[in-house]
């Protein structure tokens, strides 16, 4: 079934960008989201110390979808995420080559305004990284820095963000307490809230649940599912069950001779039920990786 038939209205509302024409015909029955490429990587390669860790990645990330990146350790998933918001710039030895676009914006262009780019692309790390200040200040700092200081509505902005991640009821009495006093799961949700107050279009989540206990992990997972449609979410996970539960699309990375490559990509159903590549089949069935 063609995606265009199932969601004609969305297509019409959209202008016809080249991304749409080059869209690969997935065999997908479930289409949750706009079939528009939000991020397009073409021939993307990443190297540390001139040693290549990721080569020739061609991947498109759909608007409003949850895309899961899976694969064994060290195959370059984190590096790929960090190249999307150009956090790789902070690693002196890291070189990114190829093409990377967000809508029509060339992410890798030297003229790209990084602060603005990163404002539109939020990122959550494996370990919760709250700043060592109060909960309130954690949310205020990004708001202030981006010149969003609705003096009157600062408090309500913060409240909305905290409510969005389901943290409001837990912390509303201690907004002025150190954020480090929160539990790991709460800290991770605070990090998410901190990214959400900036109203990004894209969220990059690097194993957001792996440092959390199963309960907190479940809470964060539900939260991520609730973001579907509003944000384009890219999530790295080692938890295949989780990937299966929440993702619309899956991309499998694999390290071939020490160099990471994109092996196969497709809708979750395709990847989990009828994978084309033998590595995918093996990885999904737990035989390898």
């Amino acid at each position: 079934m063609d995606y265009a038939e199932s969601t004609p209205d969305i297509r019409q509302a959209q202008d016809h960008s080249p991304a749409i024409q080059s869209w690969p015909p997935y065999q997908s029955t479930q289409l949750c989201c706009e079939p528009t490429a939000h991020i397009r990587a073409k021939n993307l390669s990443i190297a540390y110390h001139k040693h290549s860790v990721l080569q020739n990645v061609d991947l498109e990330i759909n608007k409003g979808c949850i895309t899961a990146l899976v694969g064994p350790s060290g195959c370059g998933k984190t590096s790929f995420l960090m190249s999307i918001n150009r956090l790789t710039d902070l690693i002196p030895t890291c070189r990114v080559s190829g093409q990377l676009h967000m809508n029509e914006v060339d992410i890798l262009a030297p003229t790209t305004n990084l602060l603005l780019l990163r404002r539109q692309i939020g990122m959550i790390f494996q370990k919760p990284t709250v700043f060592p200040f109060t909960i309130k200040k954690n949310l205020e700092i990004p708001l202030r820095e981006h010149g969003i200081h609705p003096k009157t509505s600062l408090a309500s902005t913060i409240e909305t963000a905290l409510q969005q991640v389901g943290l409001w009821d837990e912390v509303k009495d201690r907004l002025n307490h150190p954020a480090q006093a929160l539990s790991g799961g709460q800290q991770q949700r605070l990090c998410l809230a901190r990214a959400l107050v900036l109203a990004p279009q894209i969220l990059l989540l690097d194993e957001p649940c792996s440092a959390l206990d199963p309960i907190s992990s479940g809470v964060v997972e539900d939260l991520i599912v609730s973001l579907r449609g509003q944000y384009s979410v890219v999530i790295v996970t080692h938890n295949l069950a989780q990937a299966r539960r929440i993702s619309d699309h899956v991309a499998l990375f694999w390290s071939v001779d020490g160099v990471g490559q994109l092996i196969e990509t497709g809708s979750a159903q395709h990847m989990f039920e009828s994978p084309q590549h033998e590595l995918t089949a093996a990885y999904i069935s737990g035989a390898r990786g």
Partner: protein
Amino acid sequence: MRLLSKTIRETGATLLVWGTATSITIPFLWLIGDLLWHGWPQLSLNFVLALPHNAGREGGIGPILVSTGLIVSVCMVVALPIGLGTALFLSEYTRNNHMYGRLIRGSLDVLAGVPSIVFGLFGNAFFCQTLGLGFSILSGGLTLACMVLPILIRTVEESFRAISQDQRLSAAALGISKRATILLILFPAAIPGLLVGCILGLGRAMAETAALIFTSGYVDRMPESLMDSGRALSIHIYDLAMNVAGGNPNAYTTALVLVGLLLTINLFASWIADKWTTLNQLPT
């Protein structure tokens, strides 16, 4: 037989180690006890506030405390911004193997080892003569600033480096600029380290004598401006002990005041640092 010699060796070593510890503890206790024994009886509020008389044999150390305070303040006011800026530059803007950073770090390491008397020579030539500041509190403070700079920079730089890289990454991921990251996130997180650096520098400045003899001078009057010559506590002790017959009692009390001040400052610093860490790291 071998077992016996082994036992003898072990016992000998144990005795040697314990003996060393005792032989170091004795002079230490003697020194502190001596200061307290001879210095404590004269110590009073009056001694701390009064003017010195009869070349310091009688009276107190009021003006000397004021001069010391002024010298140390000048020192910190000058050293702090330079030290902070340099530490920030070294930790945030240079890579470890960066040529420029390495050059600065190397020269600071050497500077840290330069004897204080050499700083005194330099201060005398540069501040007193070339800049025409003469023997003054300003010259003394500036000389001390040069002296404490390396120690200040090193501790502050280390406290910035101790902040985990995750903080910088997550700030960058939020689109916060490097400057804002430094000012809003790294700087507050480094405050305990900053404080420790300041205190170490302050303590070193306060304890210093050799660099001050021919930069801030000997005059024990109440200073009226920073351009006046002023006598620091340590110089007062030196002068009373060496140049003033019968100055020992007041030298003792002054030494007690100096050691007491240094101790208080150090305790205060570790208290604040402790408090800060508990505030930030332990669940409340």
